[in-house]
């Protein structure tokens, strides 16, 4: 298929072909890449991100809201949607469901797209605010009066000012309810080793695990292919560093650092438990689903997880497990544990139904919404609920979740997940936890690596 043109036309075109091709390719290059620096167009104009003229009288205007839901929370969020629609029949709430581990991966691009969901729960709130993807809710706050009817501590994690979480402009709002992240236990196995009260300190918790190990029971069920030993690690960090110091890191408070003796101490405790064989030997190869199966299958005593697992754990296992809050480092010390406000959502900056979406947020502040949360394993400090009582091994699971949550709240002990500090920290933490399990990293080195990753991520943002 080699062309053997001898004609003048052929020769001419051959002479011309190279330059023509060059021009074509060049112009293609120009048209394709001439958009300048990537992202310079911006996605949300300031007007979109910060509405000033807002309306609260939208209950009778037909609208459809899209709520971006993670698969593990689908039942709960559908419950919220149903309850909302029962109250406001003109407004439909549709769920758009994404697998849990993909939720935050696709969220930024979805928010920047032409058809963003209206209601979202971003893990990387700071990133979303920086890129103008989330709506400034201050005007709605004023119109609905959220700040005066919702506890300040429930709204603080949704406030951002100057790249720091905790105060300032409201970007995530709603009611007040959250998961209890604590120690789930198998009742039958707990009875076997004679555990009758929730351990009051890390030492007591450890004693139970030693006893279980002796009795041939795996003390801790966990999955670490996905780095979910991180729940336990995070609880230990909160215990030893104090909830505030840990939250400061996650919220990007200036000067906050992980590289502290307390963090190293927390890491050493985890390392000690690994070395003592308190985890199944294949924990690095297990993922979350497998760990759910193992815990519900009675394959271990403790499961450090959040109360969202209530929605997913095998229903036949109901009644056979309970939960207590992570004991303080020392007896009589303060409770600490992660939570997130599951009743608070953000509105996409590019949402076309901001007013209706804000009505949904307002609905989240009502007892009806709190009820849905409680039904799905979350704790809510509902007015008139009274004292939840001390954590104990008796009572229903719902009571245990409420009392555990209340105990942490009473100590002002709520903090957040270290991996929420920055996406890069999330990836690095999983790797470091796998190395720790394999005995390939020392606690001090691990803490330093995580701090370096965090510092680098901050520099970039």
């Amino acid at each position, binding site marked *: 298929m080699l062309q053997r043109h001898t004609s003048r036309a052929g020769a001419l*075109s051959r002479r011309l072909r190279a330059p023509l091709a060059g021009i074509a390719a060049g112009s293609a290059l120009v048209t394709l890449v001439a958009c300048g*620096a*990537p*992202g310079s167009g911006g*996605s949300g104009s300031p007007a979109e991100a910060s509405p000033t003229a807002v309306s609260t009288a939208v209950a009778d205007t037909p609208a459809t809201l899209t709520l971006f839901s993670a698969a593990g929370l689908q039942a709960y969020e559908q419950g919220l949607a149903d309850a909302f629609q029962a109250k406001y029949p003109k407004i439909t709430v549709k769920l758009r469901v994404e697998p849990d581990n993909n939720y935050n*991966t696709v969220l930024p691009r979805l928010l920047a797209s032409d058809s963003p969901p209206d209601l979202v729960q971003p893990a990387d709130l700071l990133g979303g605010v920086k*890129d103008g993807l989330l709506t400034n809710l201050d005007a709605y706050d004023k119109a609905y009066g959220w700040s005066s009817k919702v506890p300040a501590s429930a709204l603080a994690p949704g406030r951002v000012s100057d790249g720091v979480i905790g105060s300032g402009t409201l970007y995530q709002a709603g009611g007040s309810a959250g998961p209890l992240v604590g120690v789930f236990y198998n009742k039958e196995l707990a009875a076997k080793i004679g555990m009758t009260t929730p351990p009051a300190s890390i030492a007591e918790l450890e004693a139970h695990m030693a006893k279980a190990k002796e009795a041939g029971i795996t003390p801790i069920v966990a999955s*670490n292919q996905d780095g979910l030993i991180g729940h336990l690690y995070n609880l230990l960090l909160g215990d030893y560093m104090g909830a505030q110091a840990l939250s400061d890191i996650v919220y990007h408070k200036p000067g906050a650092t992980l590289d502290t003796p307390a963090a190293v101490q927390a890491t050493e405790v985890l390392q000690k438990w690994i070395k003592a064989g308190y985890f199944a030997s294949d924990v690095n190869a297990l993922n979350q689903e497998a760990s759910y199966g193992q815990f519900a299958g009675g394959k271990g005593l403790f499961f450090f997880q959040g109360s969202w697992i209530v929605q997913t754990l095998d229903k036949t296992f109901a009644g056979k497990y309970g939960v207590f809050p992570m004991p303080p480092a020392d007896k009589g010390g303060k409770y600490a544990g992660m939570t997130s406000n599951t009743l608070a959502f953000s509105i996409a900056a590019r949402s076309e139904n901001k007013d209706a979406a804000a009505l949904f947020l307002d609905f989240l502040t009502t007892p009806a919404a709190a009820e849905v949360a409680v039904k799905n394993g979350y704790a809510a400090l509902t007015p008139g609920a009274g004292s939840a009582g001390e954590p104990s091994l008796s009572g229903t699971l719902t009571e245990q979740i409420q009392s555990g949550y209340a105990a942490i709240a009473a100590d002002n002990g709520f903090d957040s997940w270290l991996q929420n500090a920055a*996406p890069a920290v999330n990836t690095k933490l999983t790797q470091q936890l*796998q190395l720790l399990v394999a005995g390939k990293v020392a606690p001090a080195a691990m803490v330093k690596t995580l701090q370096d990753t965090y510092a680098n991520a901050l520099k970039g943002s």
Partner: protein
Amino acid sequence: MHLINPTRSRPGDHTAASRSRRTLRARRWAGWLFALPALAFYAVFNFRPILLSIQYSFYDWDGIGASTWAGLENYRAVFTDPEQLSSLLHAFYLILFFTVLPVTLALISASVMRQIQGKFTGTLARTMLFLPQIIPGAAAGVAWTWMYSDNGVVNQLLRAVGLESAARPWLGDFTWALTAVGFIGTWLSTGLCTMLLLAGIGKIDGSLYEAARIDGAGAIRQFRSVTLPGLRNEIGVCVTITVIAALASFDVVYLATQGGPGTQTMVPGVMVYNLAFNESRLGAASALAVVLALIVIAVIVPLQRLFRER
């Protein structure tokens, strides 16, 4: 096009000449016209992303907000960040399992199957060998995580034959995870290679084997002197496809281990995904992707030369 040239042989007949030139020109462009739809798709969905990746690789960009010029910083990171560097090395290690082993196994099984061709057993063997090929890599990744798990088939077999001590959670094991992932690749590509080589063997003139036999060549000598040279092209295709699969692997690794434990099975494909979508560092991801593409080209071009028929 040169078929219409006869009209040209009459110099002086200007009208005819110019008409033919016009026709020529029209026909030349007509060809491009037919190719246009395909070219447009190629430009928009292949060429443009490639150019954009190259452009992004010079920026610090989170994929949405404003970007800043980073110069060659992202490329420097590819070669200085131990994590990115090791991911590239892992990709080369995988060639052993995606290419060397499958091609060797395929050569053996294709030669053996040549003998049993046509019979029911031959069809059965071919079907079984090709079966992994119709399973998507992603599904294979999931299936193999079960087989490799603590109580999975692999460990059950090891225990059954008394190799209790060798049993381990393979994909969670720092020493063995990458090799375990590699074997998934072997399983996936052996079938494809066998099929290709079997087709190639069918094309080899039977009289060559006969002649070799008459000259007293045994099975091994026949394999070396007839089969192997006759399959030069097919082996080239196998090697090319599987080397690319090894260097640019993503689905199997992502589903089996996501690069873990630690970074033991991190390959460039997964690393690019992590950087771009989990860490929102599109510039760094693009730089690694561009380097990976260049490496693939650098490896494939000499291989193509090597296997080109002389």
